[in-house]
């Protein structure tokens, strides 16, 4: 009866079902309770969230696909040195970023040029990385896998290593219902793991959903300041309008990072970086694309007093008197930090489904 599961899985994956509305269906039947099944995972959009941007219907996360994606995510074999996995720089307890280095670390101790971004709510993002170099989640891993200062490997080599591995071929079969360790399946499995990383259980979420939480006076004051002075860019439930902006960070050695201009070639994108989501911001320090600011307090000081001018600086930071920055009082800064901490989602940080061990 073992083959039955594959038939059922194949039916589901390759079948005619143009509607994927029934995403909670279990890909199994009562006839085969003893066999290994490949259940569709419950990807549901939190009620306070926008619609997902990732096409769940075209790559629905399954139990086995998620398991495969997780193994890939934490597997150093994917790097040229056999050590630096995705999870090396993306550590769950820090919302899948890291703290020990300002910018990312790669094979042979090489240093990247940018601060590893946290991974959460990726199913709701339009583009990926600080400059939007990846327009699709499925292709984003190409960048860290092949970057010399990150995992420094070729996709062909990765596939060869996985094919030669004792367990991967079976896991690919189980996840996708047929033989084949392919690049597409690898990327899709990684996406299945990553789209399930939904962080939606912070105090802020509960407040948004009208659940039984109350903001302290300081948090509530901070929320109001945030809405007035930050939310034009850090907009909506995920605190980002997903635009690219120059927020007045000086271009500095040794990175001399030109930002989104590298992707588009457009001079007007010089020094622009993606407005990041502020989810779990309390524990994703250091801050900014190159991790140059260590604390939230310093970030707020930067926004009031630290900007440098350049042609593409966002107009919102120009004061009438010609100086640069936002007007936030010291008291408001304390309130803002209190509010930002309501974005920490401990359920997500401790969710065993995503844990390496």
């Amino acid at each position, binding site marked *: 009866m073992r*083959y039955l599961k594959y038939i059922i899985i194949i039916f589901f994956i*390759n079948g005619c079902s143009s509607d994927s509305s029934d995403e909670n269906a279990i890909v199994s039947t009562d006839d085969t309770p003893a066999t290994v099944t490949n259940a569709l995972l419950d990807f549901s959009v939190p009620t306070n969230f926008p619609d997902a941007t990732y096409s769940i219907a075209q790559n629905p996360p399954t139990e086995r696909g998620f398991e495969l994606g997780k193994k890939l995510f934490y597997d150093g074999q994917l790097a040229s040195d056999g050590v630096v996995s995705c999870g090396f720089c993306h550590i769950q307890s820090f919302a899948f970023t890291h703290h020990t280095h300002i910018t990312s670390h790669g094979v042979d101790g090489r240093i990247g040029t940018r601060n590893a971004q946290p991974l959460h709510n990726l199913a709701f993002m*339009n583009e990926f990385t600080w400059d939007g170099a*990846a327009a*699709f989640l499925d*292709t984003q891993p190409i*960048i860290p896998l*092949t970057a010399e200062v990150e995992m420094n490997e070729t996709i062909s080599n990765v596939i060869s290593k996985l094919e030669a591995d004792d367990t991967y071929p079976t896991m690919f079969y189980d996840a996708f219902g047929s033989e084949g360790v*392919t690049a597409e399946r690898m990327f899709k499995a990684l996406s299945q793991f990553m789209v399930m990383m939904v962080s939606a259980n912070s105090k802020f979420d509960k407040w948004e959903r009208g659940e039984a939480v109350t903001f302290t006076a300081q948090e509530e004051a901070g929320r109001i300041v945030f809405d007035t002075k930050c939310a034009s860019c850090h907009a909506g439930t995920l605190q980002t309008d997903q635009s690219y902006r120059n927020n007045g960070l000086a271009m500095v050695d040794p990175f001399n990072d030109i930002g989104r201009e590298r*992707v588009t070639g457009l001079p007007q994108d010089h020094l622009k970086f993606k407005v990041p989501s502020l989810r779990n911001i309390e524990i994703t320090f250091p801050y900014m694309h190159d991790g140059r600011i260590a604390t939230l307090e310093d970030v707020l000081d930067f926004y009031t007093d630290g900007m440098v001018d350049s042609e593409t600086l966002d107009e919102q930071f120009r004061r009438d008197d010609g100086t640069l920055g936002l007007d936030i009082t010291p008291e408001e800064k304390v309130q803002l930090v209190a509010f930002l901490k309501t974005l920490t989602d401990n359920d997500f940080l401790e969710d065993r489904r995503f844990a390496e061990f």
Partner: protein
Amino acid sequence: MKKLIVLCLLVSLAIACNNDESTNTPTPGSLNLVFQNTIDASPLVMNDLVYTNTSNENYGINELKYIISNITLIRLDDTEYIYPVEDSYFLIDEEGNKTASLVNIPADTYKAIKFGFGVDPTKYPIESGTLNFVPLAEEADMLWSWSAGYKFIKFEGNYSVNSGSEIPFLYHVGSHGATLDNYKEIIIPVSNMVIQSNGENDNITERNIQFDIAKIFDSIHTLSLEAKNEIMVDPENAPKIAENISTAFSISE
């Protein structure tokens, strides 16, 4: 036995799903599209600076690679046979493979061939195939290293102006993230191209498609190497090259 059952089920499913094709599908045949990179209707001579563009620059070519995708054959009645997208990505290399070998094509008479130059971002990566093309493209250095996208063409060589010293040039054109799409769809008519079923014979229809390389510099737009000898993620010039290329294909029968 188990595999057989799975296979049977798959086949039956495939048939069951395939409701956009006529029920009495003709037996399939094969088609080889051979890409011939030419200048003045002659095969390319590599490396030497034997060519001259309309800007009076002498140039030679060291490397020429490009991606062909999404091949569709148009029948006499204007209906289309869309080659399976996942098998539809081909790397054409002047110094390597230049043939797109298509199999299992319904035997019929076709009047045009449609294909993509580059990778269609609307099919990338959701429809299957584009991600499986990644390893081949990467080995051929057709993947931007810092970005998750394809180079549609890699065109490199040397040039000189007024018999001066040789200067390298480099054109790399792809799409720029989600902001600029340089993918082009190209349709070339063919006169009653018959695809015969393979049957017991090895019937492979073959067509040569010429890519007039001179048109990269001179077609809708004129590109001077002296004005710019390195075009890469260039929002002004990359679209011009893509538009020029879209005029450069023809077929000889």
